[in-house]
């Protein structure tokens, strides 16, 4: 059945490939599982031996050729012999002896061949794309078919038999689902539902018309005697043939249209039709197949009625199955928080299950899968982590692409097999003509009807494209192969015709559709960036239209959409989304986020080389130095002061023992570098841990920062000590402002250098992380996402310097035109802004991934005490001293004096409540980092042990700090000014 001769060579080259593949292939692919388990099943049934199942399992799982042989022969023989057909059996008669290497081809040939085929197909794909010239002219599908023809020819020449062809079972169970899943999941749902009426019309009426017209016309040709006498087919046979040949094929349409880039409406109509017509095709095919088997004379009226009924059952049933699974899937992902790593698996599993369930119940499986993917996406995307999202996306695309490649290649290979088809020119020719003509007629007639109802009518060019885009593909081929030769006598003719039609549509139409699109000037899809305006106005228009429809008492499309959205928001989303995800679900905010992240990414892209070079040659970058001088240090100072607010109060709270313990602990832990390889041992099946490299980088950063801060603080505290807490505010203010001025020249340059050390490291790290989200543990992901949405409340506590830093660099890199980012970002206005203000704005710009690194560095900042300084600074800020203003050279400071509407501490409480569970995870992480955030104590002469001690409890007890902060802020004048601004 296989030709080891042919594959021996390949086998030698890729002998390890199989083992790798068996182990590496994602568990979601049921084909692998079944193929792996099949031999086991056989072995268990037929094996008379008492070999322990564990061994057997092992032997099967590793799939290594030598592994079985390497073990003791006593175990090996009973284990292998039942699974391996006669080829191995003769060995049993030989005297049992130890073999060093045993050729065990039977053992793993199934998966092996699959892997080899996938590899061949993928390699072919690479080859095609080596020359961009070819692929721009010839669609990939055509090339693959040609390749398949070539390979099939080689195999045929080598073995005189055709070995491989597109097996319908394999096609429907394994190859089609990835493509449907991909298309369903990534279907633009809004566009789809906007055009659902049109799509349904084409899918149902169009397919019915096509199949019946084609079938009848072919029958007419037969009756007229134009066809070969040997084509032994009646009306029912032709109708059956018509039903399978008339369905537009999703795989072919997708393959061709994706390369053409026609406008979205046109694409969604043709593609949606190709997906949804599955129900019609399935029913028609089954009905006519049954009729043919029964014999057309025995068909009664009841059977027709049953056929119609079955259409509704199949289509609606398929849809319902899809919806049910979508619901389950969404609900499941809501609870995967602790097991992030299997999130993508759930997506694939449940959608695939929906497909299989529909298949088992002989409902429309494509419909089930499409709707499952379409409907679950919104909730799943909101629930799963960023990393899982990326995984799902890439895995889906990879699998779909591979499946598509294999389908087209096997189509080519199958066509070589001359034994199963018989050529009849008249049948082939007329089928081609009819398929094309009836498609065109059907499209024109239906469009004429539809245009009376459609808001944006389809014009002539669209119609031409739609008729021309009616490609037939592998579905038709698989269906025709499935026909029973004994019942359908003309099967061979039909197979030949189907292959020709498929090849003609894919090759000829696929080749010509691009020039045609150009020639007809079909509206292309324009890939403009999404803008907030669009999002905003689209939604506003929706509401306005719904309102007007309601006023008119006209329950049209907008009315129902409005109702659905309302329902979704009120019930479904509540049920299916995590609370944290639900909060940020608002699309406008989403778009805003995306835009910001995009800005940040482009910024990092642009700045990447600057930063890396900065890392290498810091002193040679005067501009950067001066820049950080103005912003970073100022912000740091303010951050320190902001935190000091609560420290004063906490002073009185903690007991002495606690304090001492923690201080001791941190002094010890903080002054020891962590062993370099410490994190390497941490292996978790459930979480992807952050790179040790990252950890260590961070450690370095934190150390650097700590040193810097210490020097910084010591200058601060010398200032502080010269003043009294109880001093009169006015004098303090004066003192402080003069102090600041005096301090600047001395303190800054030194600090900046140390900053320069740290900054580039952070930034480059971020740029690396940016795209593949850093999700070391689920906490960060959720934290990051929710954090961004909640914005105002937490920022003060978490995101400060991250923002300031992320922000610091950009003025050099941003284009001169006033982008909104520029307007929003604090450096544009005033670095002297309140810390909270700065951070809340800018953290939104800094990608989520940065949070983690910053959380850590911040916490070390937060531990900066010097309470009175804060007060002084705060005061100073309120009466911005002119000297400082000039120094910053930012007149905008006056434009936004003390504007701080984000300073909303009360909200923090609710936020904390809402994500208390997340906090717990966070706490763990915090504790892990704790050693790093223990800066001072020794080098400082000591402002007061009380304040130093008070620092520690703060970090341990977030909640306490929050409430204290709240109290303090509500009491402080600071808050008052913020309130008025609000």
């Amino acid at each position, binding site marked *: 059945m296989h030709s080891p001769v042919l594959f021996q060579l390949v086998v030698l080259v890729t002998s390890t490939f199989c083992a790798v593949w068996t182990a590496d292939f994602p568990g979601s692919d049921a084909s692998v599982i079944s193929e792996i388990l099949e031999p086991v099943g056989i072995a268990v049934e037929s094996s008379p031996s008492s070999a322990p199942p564990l061994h057997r399992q092992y032997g099967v799982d590793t799939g290594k050729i030598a592994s079985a042989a390497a073990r003791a022969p006593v175990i090996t023989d009973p284990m292998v012999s039942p699974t391996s057909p006669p080829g191995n059996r003769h060995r049993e008669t030989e005297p049992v002896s130890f073999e060093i290497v045993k050729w065990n081809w039977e053992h793993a040939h199934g998966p092996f061949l699959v892997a080899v085929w996938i590899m061949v197909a993928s390699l072919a794909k690479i080859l095609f794309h080596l020359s961009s010239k070819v692929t721009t002219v010839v669609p990939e599908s055509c090339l693959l078919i040609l390749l398949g023809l070539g390979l099939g020819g080689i195999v045929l020449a080598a073995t005189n038999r055709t070995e491989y062809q597109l097996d319908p079972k394999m096609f429907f169970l394994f190859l089609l689902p990835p493509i449907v899943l991909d298309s369903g999941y990534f279907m633009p749902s809004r566009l789809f539902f906007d055009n659902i009426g049109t799509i349904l019309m084409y899918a149902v009426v169009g397919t019915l018309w096509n199949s019946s017209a084609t079938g009848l016309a072919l029958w007419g040709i037969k009756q007229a005697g134009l066809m070969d006498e040997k084509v032994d087919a009646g009306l029912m046979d032709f109708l059956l043939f018509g039903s399978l040949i008339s369905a537009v094929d999703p795989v072919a349409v997708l393959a061709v249209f994706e390369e053409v880039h026609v406008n979205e409406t046109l694409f969604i109509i043709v593609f949606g039709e190709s997906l949804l017509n599955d129900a019609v095709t399935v029913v028609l095919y089954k009905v006519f197949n049954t009729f043919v088997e029964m014999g057309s004379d025995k068909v009664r009226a009841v059977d027709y009625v049953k056929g119609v009924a079955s259409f509704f059952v199949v289509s609606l049933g398929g849809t319902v199955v899809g919806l049910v699974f979508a619901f389950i899937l969404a609900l499941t992902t809501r609870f995967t928080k602790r097991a992030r790593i299997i999130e993508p698996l759930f997506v694939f599993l449940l959608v695939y299950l929906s497909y299989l369930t529909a298949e088992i119940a002989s409902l429309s499986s494509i419909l089930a899968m499409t709707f499952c993917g379409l409907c679950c996406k919104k909730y799943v995307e909101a629930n799963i982590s960023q990393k899982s999202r990326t995984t799902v996306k890439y895995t889906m695309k990879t699998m779909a692409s591979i499946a598509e490649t294999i389908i087209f290649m096997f189509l080519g290979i199958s066509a070589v097999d001359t034994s199963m088809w018989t050529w009849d020119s008249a049948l082939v020719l007329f089928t081609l003509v009819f398929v094309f003509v009836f498609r065109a007629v059907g499209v024109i007639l239906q469009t004429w009807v539809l245009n009376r109802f459609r808001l944006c009518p389809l014009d002539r060019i669209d119609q031409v494209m739609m008729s021309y885009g009616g490609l037939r593909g592998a579905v038709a081929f698989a269906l025709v192969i499935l026909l029973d030769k004994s019942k359908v006598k003309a099967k061979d003719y039909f197979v030949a015709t189907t292959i020709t039609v498929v090849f003609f549509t894919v090759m000829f139409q696929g080749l010509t559709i691009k020039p045609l699109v150009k020639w007809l000037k079909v509206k292309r899809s324009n890939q403009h960036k999404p803008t907030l305006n669009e999002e905003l106005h689209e939604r506003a228009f929706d509401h306005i239209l719904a309102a007007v429809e309601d006023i008119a008492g006209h329950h049209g499309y907008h009315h129902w959409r409005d109702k659905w959205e309302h329902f979704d928001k009120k019930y479904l989303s509540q049920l299916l989304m995590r609370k944290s995800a639900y*909060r940020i679900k608002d699309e406008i905010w989403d778009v*805003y986020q995306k835009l910001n992240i995009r800005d940040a990414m482009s910024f990092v892209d642009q700045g990447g080389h600057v930063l890396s070079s900065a890392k290498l040659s810091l002193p040679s970058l005067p501009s950067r130095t001066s820049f950080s001088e103005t912003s970073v240090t100022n912000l740091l100072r303010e951050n320190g002061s902001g935190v000091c607010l609560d420290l004063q109060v906490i002073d009185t709270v903690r007991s002495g023992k606690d304090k001492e313990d923690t201080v001791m602990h941190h002094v010890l832990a903080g002054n020891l570098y962590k062993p370099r390889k410490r994190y390497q041992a941490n292996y978790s099946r459930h979480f992807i841990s952050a790179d040790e490299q990252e950890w260590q980088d961070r450690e370095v950063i934190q150390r650097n920062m700590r040193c810097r801060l210490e020097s910084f603080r010591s200058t601060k505290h010398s200032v502080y000590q010269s003043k009294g807490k109880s001093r009169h505010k006015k004098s303090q203010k004066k003192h402080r402002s003069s102090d600041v001025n005096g301090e600047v020249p001395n303190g800054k340059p030194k600090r900046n250098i140390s900053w320069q050390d740290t900054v580039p490291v952070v930034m480059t790290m971020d740029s690396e992380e940016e795209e593949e989200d850093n999700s070391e543990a689920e906490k960060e992901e959720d934290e990051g996402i929710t954090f961004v949405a909640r914005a105002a409340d937490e920022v003060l506590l978490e995101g400060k310097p991250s923002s300031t830093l992320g922000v610091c660099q950009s003025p050099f890199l941003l284009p001169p035109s006033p982008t909104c980012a520029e307007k929003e970002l604090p450096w544009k206005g005033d670095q002297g802004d309140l810390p909270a203000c700065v951070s809340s704005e800018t953290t939104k710009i800094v990608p989520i991934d940065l949070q983690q690194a910053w959380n850590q560095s911040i916490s070390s900042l937060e531990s900066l005490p010097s309470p009175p300084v804060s007060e002084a600074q705060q005061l100073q800020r309120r009466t911005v001293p002119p000297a400082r203003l000039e120094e910053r050279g930012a007149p905008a400071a006056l434009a936004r004096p003390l504007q701080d509407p984000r300073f909303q501490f009360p909200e923090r409480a609710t936020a904390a409540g809402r994500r208390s569970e997340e906090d717990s995870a966070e706490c763990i992480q915090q504790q892990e980092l704790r050693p790093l955030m223990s800066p001072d104590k020794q080098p400082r002469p000591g402002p007061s042990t009380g304040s130093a001690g008070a620092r520690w409890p703060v970090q341990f007890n977030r909640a306490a700090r929050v409430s204290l902060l709240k109290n303090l802020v509500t009491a402080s004048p600071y808050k008052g000014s913020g309130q008025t601004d609000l």
Partner: protein
Amino acid sequence: MGNKQTIFTAEQLDAYQDCTFFTRKEILRLFHRYRDLAPQLVPLDYTSKPDVKLPYELITSMPELKDNPFRQRIAEVFSEDGEGNMTLDDFLDMFSVLSEMAPRDLKAYYAFKIYDFNDDDYICKSDLEKTLTRLTRNELTPEEVRLVCEKVMDEADLDNDGRLSLEDFQHMIARAPDFLSTFHIRI
């Protein structure tokens, strides 16, 4: 068809036809829609041009509109008195603007008016904020709303005067080609 003459005179119908993008048939259909809103208020005979207004409260209290964030605004924009009391003319105007025949500029103008909450012929930040809070049903914090508004303003404000003029708005809408093509209603 005999009904037609008793509702409107031929001149009235002609005038309506001239002023709107509708045919006679559609005008009559819309009239019935209008009358359905308040059968007790609207007479069946419009030949004498009765001064009938649907009160603002009637429109905003419709159960279907309960969740719609723009119900008041629509009534205000399209009513002649600016207070939301709609005459038949206003009603016809409204649908005329939203019909497919209406030119894009007209649609853009009315869309602009709907956004312009304070009727100063500019969409300023406060207008945008109002729109946004209505759209998001108070799910965003004031701070978030402000940020989004700034971004929106930034995207569309070409002359950098901190507010959107009608020209800004039209330009912005023209950039997205199928933007107004969906701003239709079929009656």
